[in-house]
């Protein structure tokens, strides 16, 4: 028997979402964690990509280069743009046909919409927004299970969830929780085209118009520098200063949930458990106290500078360096000194 570890290859207009390659990396790690079992039973385990779209053959190769051994493609003009029902039905079809053991889906807007519908249809368990995934023993169960760890209660609790009697064991993972494996341009794999037809009844809800969002360009998850502001800014205008510092460092603007809830900045900028998970090289948190739900989303950053007037602010616990002071004093001085340093180099 083949033990199948599936990754949903999310794509939009022929572009693979980076979370797909991140998940292919995770799936390969999971397979390596059951090497001992495979040796005993003589079974094989494979990482397979599931690609739904229209004219997306090139992406199958990309998935293979990021670690899929095989890719199943479902192609139909109706898949050009994502819609819940036909995508759900396509995945149900594939799951029933191949019976995968594990199915990982990116916890993007699309992935969360899809995963909940699919898991309910096939009556299996789904763990959302996992921050750690491993194959490990659970009680006396013979085979290792997917141990899916995730924060709950706003990040105050970390729970490990198992799904012991139902397949596939499904999990969603947010972009940037894991790093992408390197791309191997020489990798070879098999592409299998599946025969699945979209019927009119699957299109009861259909797209009539698409409006590109001005905030869609934020792309926090993949930014290398993020400067975030929180309630400590005191007012929405404080984000102008945050933006100025971000521009100086070639970065983008992030925020805490409190600032978004206060209506100071769009949700697209929110970092944290209910916002974006980020791992930039440099993260500057200004006027952010460091609620656990914020820390969960940014603690993977390489270098964290926290600026806060309260020396006891929890943000200092995850910071690499903390500056205790008024951000309205510190940031303008930083901008000035950064400019001076740049000037000195020219």
């Amino acid at each position, binding site marked *: 028997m083949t033990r199948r570890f599936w990754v949903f290859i999310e794509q939009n207009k022929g572009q693979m979402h980076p979370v797909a390659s991140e998940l292919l990396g995770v799936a390969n790690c999971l397979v390596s964690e059951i090497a001992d079992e495979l040796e005993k039973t003589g079974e094989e385990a494979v990482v397979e990509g599931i690609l739904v779209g229209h004219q997306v053959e090139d992406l199958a190769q990309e998935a293979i280069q990021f670690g899929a051994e095989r890719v199943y493609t479902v192609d139909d003009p109706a898949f050009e743009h994502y819609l819940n029902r036909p995508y759900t039905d396509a995945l149900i079809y594939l799951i029933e046909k191949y019976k995968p053991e594990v199915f990982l889906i990116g916890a993007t807007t699309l992935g*969360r919409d899809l995963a909940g519908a699919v898991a309910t249809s096939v009556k299996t368990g789904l763990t959302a927004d996992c921050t750690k995934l491993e194959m490990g023993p659970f009680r006396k169960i013979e085979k290792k299970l997917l141990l899916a760890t995730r924060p709950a209660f706003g990040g105050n609790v970390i729970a490990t969830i198992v799904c012991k009697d139902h397949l596939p064991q499904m999990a969603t993972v947010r972009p940037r929780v894991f790093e992408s494996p390197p791309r191997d341009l020489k990798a070879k794999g098999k592409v299998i085209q599946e025969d699945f037809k979209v019927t009119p009844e699957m299109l009861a809800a259909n797209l009539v118009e698409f409006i590109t969002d001005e905030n869609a360009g934020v792309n926090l998850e993949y930014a290398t520098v993020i400067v975030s502001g929180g309630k400590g800014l005191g007012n929405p205008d404080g984000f102008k200063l945050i933006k100025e510092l971000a521009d100086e460092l070639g970065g983008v603007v992030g925020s805490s949930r409190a600032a978004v809830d206060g209506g100071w900045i769009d949700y697209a900028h929110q970092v944290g458990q209910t916002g974006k998970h980020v791992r930039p090289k440099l993260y500057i948190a200004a006027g952010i106290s460091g609620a656990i739900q914020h820390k969960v989303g940014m603690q993977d950053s390489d270098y964290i500078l926290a600026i806060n007037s309260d020396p006891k602010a929890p943000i200092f616990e995850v910071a*690499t360096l903390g500056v205790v002071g008024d951000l309205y004093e510190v940031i303008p001085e930083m901008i000035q000194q950064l400019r001076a340093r740049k000037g000195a180099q020219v």
Partner: protein
Amino acid sequence: MIHLLVSVKQVPDTTNIRIDPETGSMIRKGVPAILNPYDAHAVASAAEWKRKLGGKITVITMGPPAAEEALQECIEMGADRGILISDRAFAGSDTLATSYVLAEAIRKIHEEDPIDMIFFGKQAIDGDTAQVGPGAAIRLGMPLITYAVDIQEINKEEGFALIERKTESGREIIKTTLPAVLTTEKSIAEIPYAALPDLIYSLKYKPENWSAEEPLMYDINQIGLNGSPTMVAKSGSPEAHEPAETISVEEEGIAGVVENTLNKMLSNISVASLWEELK
């Protein structure tokens, strides 16, 4: 006249959760239970459409007896009927079992009094899974529109609605047949001050109680722990971190602190390469 249904949840106010510094575990005591904020906006949206088109709103919740308070709050906001689905047999239900319980209740209500649109908040702030709304839609076989930010039109005569939803790259306008299931963002509607007639109505109103057997006989293999494929293998507090090195403006003066900060920050191996490119 339209019939709208909102499914809500009472949740602990996760923004007010404190951690016991001794044990590192969550202190549940004294944490206020609130109507899930996303659900409150969903009720507000339903109330807006009830005012526009005339009709009624049914609100359901699954939870302990105390969850009745959440329903009461919805009645104050303009809902007409509240149903508390509560039974010990439901305890331990995960998202799959919960979607079964809610979908069966909705099905029954819909059979007796057809529903035009069903609202769920996009997620509950305790679990943040965003799975129950989609699960219920699938079970009901109704179209699902998640992350709805605006309802542009509900056209009961022609049997469609136009919904704006948010995705990562932009906004989509979806035309859906009715009835449909929406999961909604906060921007779907502002929460208004309660209107006096609604307040008066809510004072006299007592929500209905449904159990696992009455008026619907639930399949015990699909509810509670029996009906939940997932289980918590272990849980604990997040890892504690060592406090960072801090420098204080008060002690070292602004110019010195910033210079010191930049020296440290820009010489860090990750940041240094970035800085090289910026210069």
